[in-house]
């Protein structure tokens, strides 16, 4: 019986992977469901096991199944490991994603090794790796763990932030669907490092497949005794972007309204239920097993400046080759957008890219030589964030994008702090007046004042970062804010 690998990743399912899988079953194949390898323009990407190894085809439809099995399909991609888009990557975090059956538990070698090392050596290794929080804040993971470990208290928690809400990002989801055990092992290692007995994974209701896969994986890990006395609970949020902010996430986990807490106290000191808590992103935790097995130095050897290791870059929007591309920090934005992404899907010139989610700055092509690392981006008021890059071609209306940023802030505001609660709505209203040609100069000045207030006055990054897309659009694309009676784009 021929074994065929068909992804069960949401991105593949969205383009018909389920029907393709059924067709292979109907054709008498043994179908193994995997995650996605992250080449979304090729999904559904199927692989057929042959004596020479796995051979890939994509994008496949049920109608292609017969030809694929007969060996004569024009969709043939050959050995994926040799595919240039994958071969050029440096897959550490996503090494198994798209390759393995996500529900078959691997040996937790890294956890075993971590236990041999003991918490102190373990935290030292993670610190030495230079791993920074992949959720967006970029805070050194080892330092956070040390703080929690040293915080007084009998009960501690580890919390995984899987509330992936940034537009154009999907790495957390891909990993939970494609290699949930990487996250489970990472969480267990984190718990061992900080001295926590219980872990929570806070996911989102928009990710039903990820949640189902992850829940099944937890059950397997529990049944197989992989976790020891440690336990993990999956919680699913109700669709608030702000619950991706760590303190709002903790409020939500405690059963309260998802509202940001003032810091201090830091969650590392007083977090979930008032106890010391390490809150880490999915990607941060899933990278930890590799660091444990290969050493902090090996990870730190990759990257540039203070941005060490690899980043799972997520390419989306109007781009020819969307998908997940894990590479060391240091590529230029142009290499990522033009060479890796292949430019705009429409074939038109790229006019702007937004990096780091809906609150990241817009980069014009003039800044495309910026190296992809935390510090270089910060120097241009940009954001690495969670690694999302959204591409726009030259039909984009940047005034509409600026308005969208404020509208996003208004919709997602938890309503706690005044600048965000009232200011975001006032910003939308003001930009609407500007776009309608009412006191354009006065309106833009007011938006600038508002952005200062949002940046310095907001309680959390939602309000605090909204000025970045707004002001970068105004600064780099001023022509879009001049009044045009037709209101359309250029």
């Amino acid at each position, binding site marked *: 019986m021929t074994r065929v690998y068909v992804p069960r990743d949401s991105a593949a399912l969205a383009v018909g992977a389920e029907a393709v899988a059924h067709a292979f079953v109907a054709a008498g194949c043994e179908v193994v469901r995997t995650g996605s390898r992250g080449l979304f323009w090729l999904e559904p990407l199927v692989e057929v096991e042959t004596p020479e190894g796995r051979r890939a085809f994509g994008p496949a439809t049920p109608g292609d199944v017969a030809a694929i099995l007969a060996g004569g399909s024009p969709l043939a991609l050959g050995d994926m490991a040799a595919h240039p888009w994958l071969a050029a990557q440096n897959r550490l975090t996503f090494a198994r994603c798209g390759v393995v059956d996500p529900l078959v538990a691997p040996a937790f070698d890294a956890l075993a090794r971590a236990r041999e090392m003991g918490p102190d050596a373990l935290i030292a290794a993670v610190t030495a790796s230079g791993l920074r929080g992949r959720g967006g804040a970029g805070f050194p993971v080892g330092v956070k763990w040390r703080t929690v470990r040293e915080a007084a208290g009998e009960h501690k928690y580890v919390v995984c932030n899987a509330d992936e809400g940034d537009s154009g990002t999907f790495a957390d989801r891909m990993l939970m669907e494609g290699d949930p055990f990487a996250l489970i092992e990472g969480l267990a290692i984190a718990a061992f490092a900080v001295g926590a007995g219980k872990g929570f994974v806070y996911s989102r209701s928009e990710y039903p497949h990820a949640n189902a896969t992850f829940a099944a994986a937890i059950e397997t890990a529990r049944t197989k005794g992989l976790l020891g006395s440690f336990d993990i609970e999956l919680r699913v949020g109700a669709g608030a972007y702000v619950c991706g902010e760590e303190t709002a996430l903790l409020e939500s986990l405690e059963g309260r309204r998802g509202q940001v807490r*003032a810091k*201090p106290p830091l969650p590392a000191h007083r977090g979930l*239920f008032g106890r010391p808590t390490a809150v880490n992103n999915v990607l941060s935790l899933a990278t930890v097993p590799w660091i444990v097995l290969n050493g902090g130095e090996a990870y730190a050897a990759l990257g540039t400046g203070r941005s060490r290791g690899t980043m799972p870059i997520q390419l989306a929007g109007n781009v020819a080759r969307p998908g997940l591309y894990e590479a060391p920090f240091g590529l230029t934005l142009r290499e990522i957008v033009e060479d890796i992404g292949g430019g705009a899907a429409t074939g038109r010139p790229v006019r702007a890219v937004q990096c780091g989610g809906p609150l990241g700055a817009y980069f014009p092509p003039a800044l495309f030589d910026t190296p992809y690392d935390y510090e270089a981006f910060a120097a241009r008021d940009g954001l690495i964030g969670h690694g999302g890059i959204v591409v726009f071609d030259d039909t984009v209306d940047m005034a509409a994008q600026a308005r969208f940023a404020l509208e996003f802030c208004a919709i*997602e505001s938890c*309503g706690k702090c*005044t600048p965000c*609660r009232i200011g975001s*709505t006032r910003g939308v209203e003001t930009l609407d007046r500007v776009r309608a040609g009412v006191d354009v100069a006065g309106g833009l000045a007011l938006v600038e004042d508002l952005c200062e207030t949002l940046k*310095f*006055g907001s309680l959390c990054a939602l309000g605090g970062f909204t000025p970045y897309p707004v002001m970068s659009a105004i600064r780099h694309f001023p022509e879009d804010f001049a009044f045009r009676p037709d209101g359309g784009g250029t």
Partner: protein
Amino acid sequence: MARVLEFDLGTPETVGEPIGLTIDGAAVTVPEGTSILRAAAVAGIAIPKLCATDSLDAFGSCRLCLVEIEGRAGTPAACATPVAPGMAVRTRSAQLDRVRRNVIELYLSDHAAHPDRGECELCAQAAALGVRGSRYAGGAAHDGLPCDESNPYFVFDPARCIVCSRCVRACDEVQGTLALTIEGRGFASKVSAGQDELFLSSECVSCGACVQACPTEALVEKAVLEVGPPDRSEVTTCGYCGVGCTFKAELRDDRLVRMVPWKDGKANHGHSCVKGRFAWGYASHRERVLEPMIRTSIGEPWRTVSWDEAIAHTAAEFARIEARYGAHAIGGITSSRCTNEETYLVQKMIRARFGVNNVDTCARVCHSPTGYGLKTTLGTSAGTQDFDSVEQADVIVVIGANPTDGHPVFASRMKQRLRALSEGGGGAKLIVIDPRRIDLVRTPHVRAAHHLALRPGTNVAVLVALAHVIVTEGLIDEAFVRERCAIEDFQAWAEHVAGPEHSPEATEAVTGVPAGELRAAARLYATGGAAAIYYGLGVTEHSQGSTAVMAIANLAMATGNLGKPGVGVNPLRGQNNVQGACDMGSFPHELTGYRHVSDEATRALFEAAWGAPIDPEPGLRIPNMLDAAVAGRFKALYVQGEDILQSDPNTKHVAAGLAAMECVVIHDLFLNETANYGHVFLPGSTFLEKDGTFTNAERRIQRVRRVIPPKNGFEDWEITQKLSTALGYPMAYEHPSQIMDEIARLTPTFASVSYDLLEREGSVQWPCNAAAPAGTPVMHLERFVRGLGKFVVTEYLATDEKVGPRFPLLLTTGRILSQYNVGAQTRRTENVVWHEEDVLEIHPHDAEERGVRERDWVQLASRAGSTTLRARITDRVAPGVVYTTFHHPSTQANVVTTDYSDWATNCPEYKVTAVQVAPSNGPTDWQERYEAMSARSRRIAPEPAE
């Protein structure tokens, strides 16, 4: 008197090592953990703020208090940032000013125009920052949303709300009810009571904390809207329950506008409940009687007379009765609602003028067993701790008390301590011993570790079983017992409780409490750290009330839970001044400070001061007076501020006793139920109209200040003084402070108390004397007042009130939050919207058996009598148990209670009555007869034409 203003330091006080820093170049030293905002306020630097207030934890939402800190990035909020050594803070800069003004502009863009009453903090901050309008005006706004006027006392106007969450946080942190929330997100965020309900229909308990916390008058008292903002205020003590909250009475001219809890009040720390905060309207209720009245017999209508005539008539009647029946036919009842000074004068008049000790007080029917039990075991008749002590408790045991209804302000503090457990803050575990599932058993963020739902009347059996576990499992604090207690008594007690017949397993059949649960509770109490017992009338109002109090003291001594903070034996006393009334010599066997009348030295002291001989024999207690009256030996009674007909048990017997008397003098605010049997009515003054002191449940003596002149013309002590003088025992005090000076001279535990001291200290807890000049928060620190603590054997004896085929259910009684005792005050306020009538709680099983449906009229009958009321079907009560309140005279729950009473003190057994419940179609014969009699008795003769 001017308006008393409180200064808001922004965030709560903290305790810690001193930390030095500079703010705008000025050096400041504050305790560790203090916020920059508070440190600046202490240094006299006002950082703009709206969402911060020092009664609530920092929230950090308004973003006005942003500051710059040298060496730190960004602009942190001063309210949420604690000080650090050497920190250099800048509170002003061009950027900070810009951001603050912009934030104010944002606020003003959604803040409806309103009349300036000087109370809106947003408008004040805008003015201070020089912001006159908003460039953002004209967009979406909350203007036009409906104003919630459902609560009888306050309104909520969303158009003025700035969503600072101070109300929501006050409901959470101060009150602990969590009725309020923010509904919606972002700009649509809106304060909401529950799931978009009206305040009145929500979980809101109308404590007023939200109204007080509101900075913009979005939540404001209706009285402020009607009368206008207050222009003067006076600090005084609440006249409702034994918590003794300090309030700022705020007035406009001579009209009381509102009562605002006082932050420096040591019992309430700025919190309040619906009664003290809002239910003061009775003081000007139309039914209040302001002129004296007399009549020759209770069949006649009342005749309004002058004060002189009323006093002269009363004196003549008392003199006649004394001449005919002897002084022993005369007695007085002091009031736990009146001041210490007034109470003192009543007992002084009875004892000194008539030479008898026939004086008693309403503590007879509530906490007299506490007096007896704690005096016997520990040496003094009072609770051992201050309220603050609860913050250090690790285990809290609540027995026969319902703090969230009866003592709501203290309950909120208790809940804070209990909630801390689930919130990771240390907290306390809770054990509830009560037949009924009181709210504390399950309330937001609080779950009792154990609820021992015992059968009514089996307190002593449960307490002894707890002791059995502690003794037999070796959980005794031996060092404490050896050092602090009389060892022979301990050994006798330990041997007694260790008997196998006292094990939880052996007593389970009687108490209904599962043995495993009881054992676990005993272990928790004995080994869970500092353990405090709080109890109420569910302990005292039994035939073994005094025994149960002693059993509680035994437990505390055996486990070393006395003589330090966080522990103790704490009676939750009912009335505002029930502790004081007892302290003031209101019991027939004791002079002030609990000294027995048989003690010659004490008598000599009083005889010298009063210039009259004191009877060395105890006088009659209230039930004894009524018995003696029925027997024809007791003829004249002066009742100050108590409605014994409604509040005392076995109403028919009380009525018979009163009817047998020849002169019943009612000194009260209203024609109460007892007044139906009265011959003289002397109008009383409210707590708002007099100077004096109240003593709360933690022995705290607090000033009551005259806020408005007495509508009836005199403060109550003046009326007693007039009567005494007319009776030939002149009194000539010019001010209550002189009465207190006399009390202090004659009472060792009050030796240092004076009005001057109270002005200086705010309040003090007795003993307050040379040994403890600042008073005594926690008693029995080094040794017990009686020397060695005395263990007393407490054998459980079943009450003679037993269920049987005729009366198969057990009735127990209690109170609810919005009403107070017999309701004389609260029924004459808007509080009736929460409790229009008393209802009978009955378990679904018992209701089913009797064909009783929700809201049906049912007849409640005991061997003493019967009454009708509506049924509420609930599993709060166990099968076999029914429950009601006694707030309404139309129900007269005490028609069914019996005359069984505590063996030691005659405190009535209100908490256990065997009853039957049956569907009914209307009032009982008694209710109809009484109603008719009452209507007749209340007639007042029309004024004769001039």
